[in-house]
């Protein structure tokens, strides 16, 4: 029997070995070593000449916190969080819309999901044409008489609109995804509840805010948590739309872009110490936001 247990253990570890080696080497080690680098002086020149990192304590953290570019980055990443409530409420509303028992609902759902399976680089190619001065967005606004032809501008080259334009693309790529998650939750709301409210004369607007939103709160909070974590880590969108510059005038410079541009985004000047320190600070902000969200969800759970 004892021998059998030993065999089982050996087999278990043999099966686990590929996953453990890869996770150890490419997930645990880089997070630990990257955190350590945050307290050292280590540049790409050191790497090339084979010199090791030199311990400098809190110097990098001080530098990063005092760097106005990093402050801009944190501020823009926090601004990016504004997409979360808009995205979540809109996704829930869309889910309610396609949850009706009408023909062609599956067709609309599939159509709304197409942006989700679109690469961010393709999204950048297509949306850049839409945001051009002569692009589709300005043409539509002109059609609606909201601007005239002198009022047209490139939405990605204006420091007041660039971040919002990129947030719109995040919204575009996200609402179908969350719609599907909300559709699963909506199945649990009894149809009689809505029918009763309709008979009592509640409008669609009232039914949405007074019945569906309160009943969907657990799903709403979970999705908001997922969405918050993704939004605070926004990086790919900025790279594909601005080529990594975070322009115009740093108006789209996000926190993680700072990490990228201090390391492999700007390879010849890479400073892994500064990048690691900035990464640690962003991780702290991320943890704080996740914790806040988790507390909110837990209270919600204990209430139910």
């Amino acid at each position, binding site marked *: 029997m004892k021998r059998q247990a030993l065999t089982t253990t050996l087999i278990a570890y043999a099966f686990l070995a590929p996953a453990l080696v*890869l996770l150890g080497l*490419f997930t645990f080690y880089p997070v630990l070593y990257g955190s350590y680098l945050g307290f050292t002086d280590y540049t790409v020149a050191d790497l090339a000449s084979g010199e090791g990192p030199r311990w400098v304590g809190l110097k990098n953290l001080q530098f990063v916190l005092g760097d106005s570019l990093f402050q801009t980055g944190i501020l823009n990443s926090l601004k990016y969080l504004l997409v979360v409530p808009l995205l979540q409420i809109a996704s829930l509303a869309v889910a309610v819309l396609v949850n009706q028992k009408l023909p062609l609902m599956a067709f609309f759902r599939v159509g709304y*999901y*197409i942006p989700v399976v679109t690469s961010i680089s*393709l999204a950048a190619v297509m949306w850049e044409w839409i945001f051009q001065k002569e692009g589709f967005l300005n043409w539509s606004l002109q059609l609606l008489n909201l601007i005239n032809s002198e009022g047209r501008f490139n939405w990605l080259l204006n420091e007041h609109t660039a971040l919002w334009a990129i947030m719109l693309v995040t919204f575009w790529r996200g609402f*179908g995804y969350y719609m599907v998650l909300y559709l*699963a939750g909506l199945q649990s709301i009894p149809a009689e509840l809505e029918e009763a409210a309709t008979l009592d004369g509640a409008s669609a607007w009232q039914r949405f805010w007074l019945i569906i939103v309160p009943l969907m709160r657990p799903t709403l909070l979970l999705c908001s948590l997922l*969405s918050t974590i993704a939004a605070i880590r926004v990086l790919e969108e900025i790279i594909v739309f601005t080529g990594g510059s975070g322009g115009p005038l740093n108006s789209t410079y996000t926190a993680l872009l700072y990490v990228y541009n201090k390391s492999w985004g700007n390879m010849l000047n890479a400073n892994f110490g500064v990048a690691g320190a900035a990464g640690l600070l962003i991780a702290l902000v991320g943890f704080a936001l996740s914790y806040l969200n988790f507390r909110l969800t837990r209270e919600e759970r204990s209430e139910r």
Partner: protein
Amino acid sequence: MSPAKTQEAARLRAKANLRKGLRITLSYALMLVILGFAIFPFLWTLAISITDKQASGISIYDFPRSLFPPAITLGNFFEVIDKLNLGKYFLNSVFITALTVVGTLVVSALAAYPLARLQFPGKALIFGAIVATLVLPTEIAFIVNVITLRDLGLLGSYAGVVLPIIATAFGIFLMRQAYLAIPGTLMEAARIDGATELQILWRVMIPLSMPSLTALGIFTLVGTWNAFFWPSVALLTNDDLLPMSVAILKLKGQFNNDVFNVAAGAMIMMIPVLVVFFLAQRFFMRGLEGAVKG
């Protein structure tokens, strides 16, 4: 019932029907607008990609004419493959995606088995460690991973792109969930027949977990085909192996004037994903909470 009352009832019913009809019409109108928002970029890009640019006075911004190209051609597609070497990048995408899918399936299917069905010392610890990868600040891992790949001599190779991304908590837990749903009596029967653990995994667990394996494979396929950031970093030193998702932006930068070719390239990249998505839509519309979107 008096005639007056019948009339009143009919009037009320007609009013209710009218309201219902109005509501349905409004719903469809709204859904059509949202559909336009969702797919307009593709429709426009498709229109650009098949526009015959030889015709005089063609501008992609000449709305609404540019949405309905007067002269249609497939020339842009041949040109982008011929001149910009898109075929090479397409094949890179195929190789990277295929290796990642196979790797993810093998690693996940193997690792999930002991976690689901075997008792061994250290199981709780390993389980906890895999859960921990979900909360680790992995967004900074790329900094060190490039250094590691360089030290291993894998920087700028397919293996360097693929190896760091095939072991994921999502894949392992998805497979573990599938194995847990298989009745234990089947395993016991196989053991009594003298089957080894590897045989049980291969003959019992895997055939019965096909839906989960397929789902994992499809999610990995679409995710890897579309991935931009990691391949762009891992192939920093080797432009020749870039997948389409990274190459398309480089092409756009270099040939900014020819939007027609870029649009054709975009379509070439998008069509395989669309085919997979339409064929496997039920996996996506079921809503697995795996991938995270902003």
